[in-house]
């Protein structure tokens, strides 16, 4: 699992060229040039396919009513923020942003705390009932949330969590995947340091907090990012548990905006940009953690 993780895509080195380029013929140079051009052409093609829709949408969100949004030119001649203002006038978008931030941040923090506590115990301590606990956490990974969604709603309702952000947060506050990642991280630490700390008289709690936890910062980062992004992007569960439009998270709110209030594509485009730009910035700032997370979580998916 971690063997996959250490191989982040950008860490691959170019195989150093064996020392036989002296006799490289002109034909082979030409072949190489063609090869490179084809590759970059293909890359550009895929770029248009995968980034194009975002760019197009971003351009549309900046176009005023006078500009056609059907032309091949995605970029506005006279960029305007009017559409963003229109979003704020139609739905309580700042409230939605706040709700999404609360939900995503709480989910990240809670997953880090709960999963590292559980992961540490499962990795380090032998105790009666461990196999049962293992099976329980494994079951939470295997059972898709969609299967139990209706019953989770009933449980949340009897706990008084309907229409509250707590109700959005709690079911995913300690996912099986987070626990698995932390458990794997702690298992791969050398035991000796903790044993030394124990001889020095450190308590279990100190060993966990001062010795083990600082050594798994990378995995904590992965857990935090994945929990944050998942919570920010999630649609189905907030849609189920939140009833009052003033409590919506951003994803539900944006869908509400386009479904209920407006067919003005410029405004919808502005709404989607509000929901996606913060995440794209986060991603480009912290990309290596995202890729590492796919490695650690990919086994489960």
């Amino acid at each position, binding site marked *: 699992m971690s063997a996959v993780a250490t*191989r982040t*895509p*950008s860490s*691959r080195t*170019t*195989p150093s060229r064996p020392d036989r380029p002296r006799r490289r013929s002109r034909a082979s140079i030409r072949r190489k040039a063609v090869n490179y051009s084809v*590759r970059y052409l*293909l*890359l550009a093609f*895929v770029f248009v396919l*995968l*980034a194009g*829709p*975002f760019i*197009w*949408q971003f351009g549309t969100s900046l176009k005023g009513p006078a500009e056609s949004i059907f032309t091949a030119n995605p970029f506005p001649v006279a960029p305007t923020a009017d559409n963003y203002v229109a979003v704020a006038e139609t739905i309580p978008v700042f409230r939605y942003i706040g709700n999404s931030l609360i939900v995503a941040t709480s989910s990240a923090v809670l997953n880090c*705390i*709960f*999963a590292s*506590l*559980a992961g*540490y115990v499962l990795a380090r301590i*032998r*105790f*009666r009932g461990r196999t049962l606990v293992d099976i*329980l*956490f494994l*079951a*939470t990974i295997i*059972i*898709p949330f*969609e299967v139990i*969604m*209706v*019953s989770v*709603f*009933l*449980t949340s309702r009897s706990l008084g969590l309907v229409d509250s952000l707590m109700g959005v947060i*709690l*079911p995913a*506050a*300690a996912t*099986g995947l987070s*626990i698995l990642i932390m458990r794997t991280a702690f298992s791969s630490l050398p035991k000796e340091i903790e044993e030394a700390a124990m001889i020095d008289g450190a308590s279990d709690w100190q060993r966990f907090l001062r010795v083990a936890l600082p050594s798994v910062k990378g995995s904590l980062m992965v857990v935090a990012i994945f929990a944050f992004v998942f919570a920010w992007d999630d*649609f189905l569960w907030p849609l189920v548990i939140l009833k009052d439009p003033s409590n919506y998270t951003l*994803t*539900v709110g*944006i*869908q509400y905006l*386009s479904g209920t209030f407006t067919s003005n594509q410029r405004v919808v485009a502005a*709404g*989607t940009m509000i929901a*996606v730009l913060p*995440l*794209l910035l986060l*991603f480009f700032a912290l*990309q290596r953690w995202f*890729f590492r997370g*796919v490695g650690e979580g990919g086994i489960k*998916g």
Partner: protein
Amino acid sequence: MKAQYRWLPWVFLAPALAIALIFHIGPFLNTLVLSFTDATTLGGGTFTGVENYAALLSDPQFWTSVRNTLLYAVVVVPLLMLLPLLLAVLVEKNLPGIGFFRSVFYSPVVASMVVVGLIWTWLLSSDGAVNRVLQALRIVQEPLPFLTDTSLLLFSCMLVTVWKGLGYYMVIYLAALGNVPQHLHEAAQVDGAGGARRFWSITLPGVRSTMFLVGLLGAIASMKVFAEIFVISSGTAGPGGQARTLVYTIREVGLGLSGEIGYASAMSLALFVLTIGFSILYLRSQRMEQTR
């Protein structure tokens, strides 16, 4: 020292275990029980035996959902097994700027399905970019009704699922490609094997097990499709709700106005059986691989 190990693990485990029990294990058992009752959101719930399951068998809405969900897997899984692999091969080599391309190709994964769905709803509308391109290339005369025709709507959603998933599986394949021995490629090159030949004879066998894994992940994801359908059809699942998937129907039946919890629970277990079925198929195929 030993004595405190009786309670210490449980203190550490308590929060995670509580969430697992309250929000996962408990509801799963509850779903099992409720599926044999006629419970609704308003309460009630007398034991009705296998009545819900019997009703499922003759419910056209259920079968439409199952058919669409399976169709989804049949189309999406092969595409997700192949296209991201080609993409990974494309970005594998260390060219200048390749890190930038990898990141951009991954960016749809980061976006919410709601955002992606709304963007594509716009691109696929009757005067949207896709229809304009198709018309400009003289492939079609009239704009295609991507969003209003049931089959085309389903197809559009599949396209969106694949589009959003490409980057994720690309990264999984990149890790696998790193484990394909480079010397095999070099040896084949010396023997005069071209790119296509090497892809077929070296790359494909090298990432075989990863392909199976990607297939499984894609199949499970297909079983859970909801947001694409909901967003792209603006919450209607197409004309007459004919483009519905299982999760769409479960939500509508169990959490909609009628709130037939018992019936929705039976449907949920059907979804569970499908999902687990793919995992079992996968494990079988893995075992056969090993005994080969």
